[in-house]
């Protein structure tokens, strides 16, 4: 009744192409942005930021990155953890080497460095695809982790191979290190997330994104109509790795504050982010958010219900968590193989017709 196109007249191409064609959606988007920037920062505490918002935002950035590569350009990657490690170690080296420069530039530069590394490891995608490419990117995962463990220069020769984020600030507000205020940590992650999501949305609906999708859907046909596969695949790897690198940099510098390559950026991280986009929905911006929310928030939510609410022993709760989250993944994928994003899309279709479906 309220959720409909009728009455919302579009008089220009610009209006016609907007991201949210329905008025209610647009309003919802602006309200969400206003709440996220204007209200939440005044109420968040350490627990909310460190256990919920920071991991959710950062994983959402990583999921957006992988979604560009796998969901939009169709190149399967199991190297996400390794690329996050590149971002983390790059930002660490930059933070330590140039302490006077604003951390935001360090994070962006770390993303840039990851993009270069990503393109390098993306070269095999020109010759191989599908499972074979997955194996090649898997190799990059293991190589990068091995490299960060093996070469002491990356962790500044510390005894244990751990890297620790020193205190750095943005316009005088501390955003890394132990003295960070909860709201500052929240906002820095949110700013990057909104920026990345905005970029991703605009890239994917423009010519670049259409090329990626052409390559994904049928690379030979795309080539025939004039898409250069080299450029399309390399840009996909570059943009994707840039996002993943930014996520890795924030993950280490803002969220954890200390990291080691094998534990924080191991193969399980690659799988976790791949699961996020599969459950959320391949080739969907909303799906990246939904998948990250599902994989990050569900375990925390269940832990709080089972241990905090129902007083179960922690080990029993942890095992049940695996079973419930696993069960839900299977359930969602059976109900809707295209992920949560598709569920959301169907809901919206139904809402448009409600209450007169015929």
């Amino acid at each position, binding site marked *: 009744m309220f959720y409909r196109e009728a009455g919302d007249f579009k008089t220009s191409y610009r209006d016609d192409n907007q991201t949210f064609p329905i008025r209610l959606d647009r309003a919802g988007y602006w309200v*969400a942005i206003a709440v996220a920037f204007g209200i939440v920062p005044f109420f968040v505490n*350490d*627990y*909310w930021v*460190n*256990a*919920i918002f920071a*991991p*959710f935002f950062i994983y959402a950035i990583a999921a957006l990155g992988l979604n560009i590569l796998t969901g939009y350009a169709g190149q399967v990657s199991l190297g996400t953890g390794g690329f996050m490690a590149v971002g983390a170690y790059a930002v660490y080296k930059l933070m*330590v080497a140039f302490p006077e420069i604003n951390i935001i530039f360090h994070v962006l530069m770390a993303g840039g460095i990851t993009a270069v590394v990503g393109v390098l490891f993306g070269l095999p995608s020109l010759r191989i695809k599908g499972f074979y490419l997955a194996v090649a990117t898997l190799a990059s995962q293991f190589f990068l982790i091995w490299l960060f*463990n093996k070469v002491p220069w990356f962790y500044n020769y*510390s*005894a*244990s*191979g*751990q890297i*620790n984020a*020193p*205190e750095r600030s943005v316009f005088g507000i501390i955003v890394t*290190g*132990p*003295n960070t205020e909860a709201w500052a940590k929240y906002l820095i992650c949110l700013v990057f997330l909104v920026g990345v999501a905005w970029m991703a949305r605009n890239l994917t609906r423009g010519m670049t994104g259409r090329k990626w999708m052409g390559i994904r859907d049928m690379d030979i046909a795309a080539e025939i109509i004039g898409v250069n596969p080299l450029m399309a695949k390399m840009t996909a790897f570059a943009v994707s790795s840039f996002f993943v690198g930014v996520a890795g940099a924030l993950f280490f510098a803002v*969220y*954890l*504050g*200390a*990291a*080691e390559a*094998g*534990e*924080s950026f*191991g193969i399980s991280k690659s799988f976790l982010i791949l699961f996020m986009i599969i459950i959320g929905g391949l080739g969907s911006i*909303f799906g990246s*958010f*939904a998948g990250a*929310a*599902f994989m990050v*928030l*569900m375990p*925390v*939510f269940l*832990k*709080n*219900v089972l*241990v*905090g*609410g129902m007083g179960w*022993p*922690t*080990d029993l*709760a*942890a*095992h049940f968590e695996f079973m419930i989250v696993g069960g839900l993944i299977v359930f969602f994928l059976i109900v809707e193989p295209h992920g*949560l994003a598709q569920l959301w899309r169907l809901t919206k279709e139904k809402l448009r017709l409600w209450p007169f479906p015929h």
Partner: protein
Amino acid sequence: MKFSRVAAASVAALMVGAPAMAELVFPSLSYRTGPFAAGGIPYADGFADYMTLLNERDGGVGGVKISVPECETAYNTEKGVECYEATKGEGALVYNPLSTGITYQLIPKATADDIPLYTPGYGRTSAANGKVFSHVFNFPANYWNGASAAVNHLLDINGADLSGKKVILLHFNGAYGKEPIPTLTALGEKHGFDFSAIPVDYPGQEQKSQWLQIRRERPDYVLFWGWGVMNQVAIQEAGNIRFPLENMIGVWWSGAEHDVKPAGDAATGYKAVAFHGVGSDYPVFGDIQKYVVDAGKAAGNGDNVGTVIYNRGVYAAMMLAEAAKKAQEIHGVADITSGQMRDGLEQLEITDARMTELGMEGFGPAFKVSCENHGGPGTAAISQWDAGKGTWSLISDFGPSDMEVIQPLIDADSMAYAAENNIAERCN
């Protein structure tokens, strides 16, 4: 977005429901799941059981009951962060996360929140330097003491001469396993043995290639820094390549019953460094049996009493309870804060008389913590496994470690940390 808000709102509703407590809160960031659960379970059980014993037998510490909220980390740093934030609000006095990775993460955070960290025998070794690390305590012994104790034992059995010997460190490829490398390198130079390190990646269920390398290089001795499932695999693999197990020495985290039992008789002779007593021939375990296990109040299954890692949990809990008592004495209040707890830890003194009173005579060393030294005496002994009898036994006395080598390393590493983080020296 919609999904996340529903979940977050529910979490908030639950957190508001948590009751306020007037108790001494010792959170236990434990891991009863994951590849390291084999070690995590007995430690968490021992820690919780000793605290329960104090509640049941003595009515807590200084008349205030103790509560031990548990939080499952699965040895994962992200879950560790969540657990830290979740329990911090309950008035946590001290953290003992039993994970070197989580410790590294918590050192700056806990220091900023004025909550001490107690990491006996693990964590950041250079935190022994109290001048830099105001809130971290790792007495009575740390990794570098352990490495030195192992080398001292090798010196003992080789007539004080190790020149030309080949020693390999097989280690977990993470913060924990890499800690002893600088010390062993320095000791190798001092005593003239040939040292090299072979890493095993997390979680360590597959070590064929590492042991192939060991077989090829034919070392005289293998030192071993493993944990959880990695230990059992390593000891079985050592048996498979017929490596004499009396030439393999594990650190204290690689020397428990569950590590050697899977290898059966082949494990006989395997040695491990220990910083506290083994077995259950101490009166305190009788009390635990009587007040906790028989009363049906044991944590977990209650079947770990007297095992190596369980004892370590008891030992750690004892230290914290004593420190809390000290803090109550210093500040004259029963319901202490985390800052006061830190003072208690810094002025803790464990005497032999006190150990006897606690029913733990000879279980660990007598020592005194000071502002400069948060690392304790660093004494350690060597224990050996007998598969026939199914027991660990100490084959040496608790001896000192080579502080001549270790102290400069501690100073260098802690000063580097101080410089990176702009920390001014304390205790002047």
